[in-house]
């Protein structure tokens, strides 16, 4: 079981070189990460996109790219489709987004999953390495589904459980986040929670467990007093997966790594391998960290199949 990002990085260095398709790597921060990944012997990149733009960006950072495979394509959807089909055909171990809107990639993945008949959808899992917590935790979906309904939430959780299984967690714990309602409400905040608990018991989410409660104050009872005394929280029975109610919440919570002492690495996991989706505000260190996470997930998926 992988408990920290430091452990992810150590594993990444031992899993052997992975073939990585990069979709439109036309940005310096991104090419920096590719260069470092290559220098470390982690990856063999296949760069798909506008050859001239890629070369220009590489020149700006003095990256010679000797021998790196470049597939010249201009159309964004075609770039994304090609990379994704290579992943599903087993020609690459993982793919990464460069300067291309994620919507193109999500479309490509949905098509490929559809062709394979897996019934999966696309969702983003953002892992957090939190000081004081002795395992990884995560927020999901932080990137795709704007207002997921019950059936979308089932698929989102399946993806998260699948990823945690790949990281060696046999029975990840899930919390379904929802705020209490003070006034009249359009939604029963516990409705999806109760249905998901049933679905989980039926085994419809994979091997996992949904913990009782829908708020941090419920699954970390009494810890508010610990915090207000200025003491460190000792996490007990903290979930590996936090399902956020909708995308605004996910997007806002997950980027608290800009503020708190937590570290974040996000990923899309498909049935055929990981997709790394660095945000436009990510810097090279964080891109490299996500690459390491993807490599470890890819390796464990390879071992399984």
């Amino acid at each position, binding site marked *: 079981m992988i408990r920290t990002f430091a452990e992810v990085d150590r594993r990444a260095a031992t899993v052997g070189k992975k073939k990585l398709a990069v979709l439109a790597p036309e940005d310096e921060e991104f090419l920096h990460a590719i260069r470092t990944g290559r220098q470390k012997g982690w990856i063999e990149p296949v760069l798909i996109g506008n050859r001239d733009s890629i070369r220009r960006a590489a020149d700006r950072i003095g990256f010679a790219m000797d021998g790196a495979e470049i597939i010249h394509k201009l159309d964004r959807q075609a770039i994304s489709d090609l990379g994704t089909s290579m992943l599903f055909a087993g020609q690459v171990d993982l793919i990464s987004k460069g300067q291309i809107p994620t919507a193109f990639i999500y479309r490509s993945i949905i098509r490929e999953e559809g062709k394979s008949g897996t019934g999966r959808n696309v969702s983003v899992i953002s892992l957090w390495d939190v000081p004081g917590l002795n395992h990884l935790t995560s927020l999901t979906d932080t990137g795709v589904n704007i207002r997921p309904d019950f059936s979308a939430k089932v698929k989102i959780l399946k993806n998260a459980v699948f990823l945690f299984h790949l990281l060696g967690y046999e029975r990840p714990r899930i919390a379904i986040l929802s705020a209490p*309602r003070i006034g009249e409400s359009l939604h029963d905040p516990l409705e999806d929670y109760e249905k998901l608990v049933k679905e989980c018991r039926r085994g419809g989410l994979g091997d996992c467990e949904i913990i009782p409660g829908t708020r*941090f104050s419920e699954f970390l009872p009494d810890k508010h007093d610990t915090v207000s005394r200025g003491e460190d929280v000792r996490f007990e029975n903290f979930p590996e997966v936090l399902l956020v*109610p909708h995308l605004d919440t996910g997007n806002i919570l997950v980027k608290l790594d800009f503020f708190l002492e937590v570290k974040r690495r996000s990923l899309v996991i498909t049935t055929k391998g990981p997709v790394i989706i660095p945000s436009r505000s990510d810097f090279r260190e964080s891109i490299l960290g996500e690459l390491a996470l993807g490599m470890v997930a890819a390796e464990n998926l390879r071992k399984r199949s």
Partner: protein
Amino acid sequence: MIGSFEEALEKAAAAGPATLTVAPLSEKAVRTALKARTLGLAVPCFIGNVRRHERLLKGMVSPELLIQEEDPDSAVRKGVERIKAGQADILMQGDGEARSFIQAVAHRDHGLPLKGPLSYISVYALKNRKKLILLTDTLIHETPTLEDKRRILETALAFSSVLGIASPKVALLAAIEQVNPGIPSTLDAAVLSKMSERGQFGDAVVEGPLDIDCALSERAASRKGIRSPVTGNVDIYVLPDLETGYALSELLVFIGGMPMAGLLLGASHPLIPEHPAVGEEMKVYEIALAVLAGMKKKTHG
């Protein structure tokens, strides 16, 4: 400018004691109110099951400030009546869920007069700088409308002025920093920030939509092409909806290790509901913040 909870407490104590009503009672609330009295923050009155808390209250409070009322809803109602009668400045909930307390104080017939929609402000002290930050609304509005957000923002701005924050910097948070017709929170934020540009929020600098990385980090913002005095230096975070506001307010406490104090504003007087993320040590700061919020009311009618 008040940069810490301790400073808020000093300033509130210096302003002289306010009258505080606690209803219904919990041990934590009774201890807190007595502590507030010792610190010179408040003169407390207790409404609830006084007998159950006799051990703490005996000999500490004069009998006319102890009102036995076992029914929690009636206790809150009596507390509201004391405020309406001018006998109390602040109402604090002890026992029970925030929901029942808030419904009672906002009751159409028996509640307090409202200045606008109620909103809850979560207050935190930054760890690395001497600065308080405000998050709102983190408890009341499930999906606030543009008009709700305007009022919520105005309430927060009025509160920030009692904290001495000059030209407060406001981040209107949304999922993304671009205005997207498909995402209502980005549209509301764009309108509010335009209103601010036209001086409709006084000297506040209101920026939005901002995603949270742009709000928190100047470096992240400039990478996305946003240059604003707000990025990396926010005083007030306005949340797009309840799910986000509530989860964020708790996450800062439980994962961030940042103690929270909260106030319910928008009624004629400041209110302190019981919040599961507020620890006992923070309750006395809530009273201090309520004292300061009430002072503003006195000076500006």
